[in-house]
């Protein structure tokens, strides 16, 4: 039996999808601003964060109404409660894109300390993990969610590479590089945190689809790795 409730659930799903698009765009734009050292682009990411904040509030309200008015059970209940958590993660991801943009504003007046190598790789990974995490939610795809979770290690490795290079090749050798090295180091950290949030979303998706808790390594995702 097709329920009126299903239409409301589909609306919630599209709200999440819309927020996910905005967040993905913010991440891409913040790193583009870095690559091109463009203050205007960075400033736009910072300004547009309020749209993402509004999305979060709207989704919270939609979820609250559905919980109060529809008394959801089982898979519906898991969908709505996870949508609430996912919107919180997405909002934090957008905040991290703002953090990256603020670092760009700090860096933009001088040439970059070094050509960017691992940061673009980390950006691509963050972007992919974000997109896959949202698709896994929308399509209730636990398999894709597991791929997202297993990518998190790669994100950690890339962040470590950036960190080591900056520490060993620049900061420890020449202290005057510090003002230009620290923002890059932080950007790698912000990107890695974005991947952590994508991982959180993926974990919530597995709970939503399979009612299985995989957070805090309660389930070994990949025995061979």
């Amino acid at each position: 039996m097709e329920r009126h409730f299903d239409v409301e659930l589909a609306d919630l799903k599209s709200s999440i999808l819309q927020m996910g698009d905005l967040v993905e765009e913010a991440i891409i734009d913040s790193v583009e601003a870095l690559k091109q050292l463009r203050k205007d682009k960075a400033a736009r990411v910072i300004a547009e964060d309020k749209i993402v904040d509004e999305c979060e509030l709207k989704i919270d309200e939609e979820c609250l109404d559905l919980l109060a008015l529809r008394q959801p059970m089982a898979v519906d209940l898991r969908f709505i409660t996870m949508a609430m958590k996912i919107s919180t993660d997405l909002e934090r991801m957008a905040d991290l894109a703002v953090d990256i943009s603020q670092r760009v504003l700090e860096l933009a007046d001088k040439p970059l300390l070094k050509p960017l190598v691992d940061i673009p790789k980390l950006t691509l990974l963050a972007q992919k993990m974000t997109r896959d995490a949202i698709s896994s939610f929308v399509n209730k795809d636990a398999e894709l969610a597991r791929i997202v979770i297993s990518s998190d290690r790669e994100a950690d490795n890339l962040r470590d590479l950036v960190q080591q290079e900056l520490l060993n090749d620049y900061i420890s050798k020449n202290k005057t590089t510090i003002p230009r090295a620290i923002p890059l180091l932080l950007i790698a950290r912000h990107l890695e945190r974005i991947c952590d949030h994508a991982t959180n979303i993926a974990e919530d998706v597995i709970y939503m689809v399979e009612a299985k808790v995989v957070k805090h390594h309660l389930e070994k995702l990949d025995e061979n790795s």
Partner: protein
Amino acid sequence: MDNKIKMQAKNVDFFYGKNQALKNVNLNVYANKVTAMIGPSGCGKSTFIRLFNRMNELVAHTTLKGKILLDDLDINSPLVDAVDIRKRVGMVFQKPNPFPKTIFENISYGLKVNGIKDKAFIEQKVEDSLKKAVIWAEVKDRLNDSALKLSGGQQQRLCIARCLAVETEVILFDEPCASLDPISTAKIEELILELKKDYSIVIVTHNMQQAARVSDYTGFFLLGELIEFGKTQDIFTAPKDKKTEAYITGRFG
């Protein structure tokens, strides 16, 4: 609340003998919306809904003060015939009450007493009404069976179809699911959500969750007073009155 108002209660007081059952109730029923009345037993919600099609005047020693408007018509004006009002404002009761006649006759009866004789028209109207009430598929092969053979949920949908056959504009539901199982209840609720596209609906229910699920506006009654009225999502997520909050969170009632 910028919707079109279909019915209106203005400064309504109602008495059973000397007992005041409703105290200065003001409430709007919006067109093509579902308005729910909730509240503990004896709070006056059923008495209130019965004013909307003059059912209370069948009870002896009752007094109504204030006005009930249907569009802009004062339904209690001496010039207005109660039968006409009940045609425009239909009612579905707690216990399904089909006539002890065939399924077909249950629907055609209202048309015949209104003087309609065209057989083809009646047949079409019966089919349309049963389809609208989402019971056609279950009864189309046994229209000449007794309506009393139907299940409780089917009988209730038949009673809804009976309302729809005449030119109803507003449907009043007085605890329509109180005697039904959860599946039949879900069917009636889905039906109500479908019907509001064409009708204005008022529902009295003991079941707060049901009010939350089906209604757009909710009124909370307590001891004959309308304590709070507002959009259902506001009433159930952030009621303004402490008494409403206590009731919907199960702290009393």
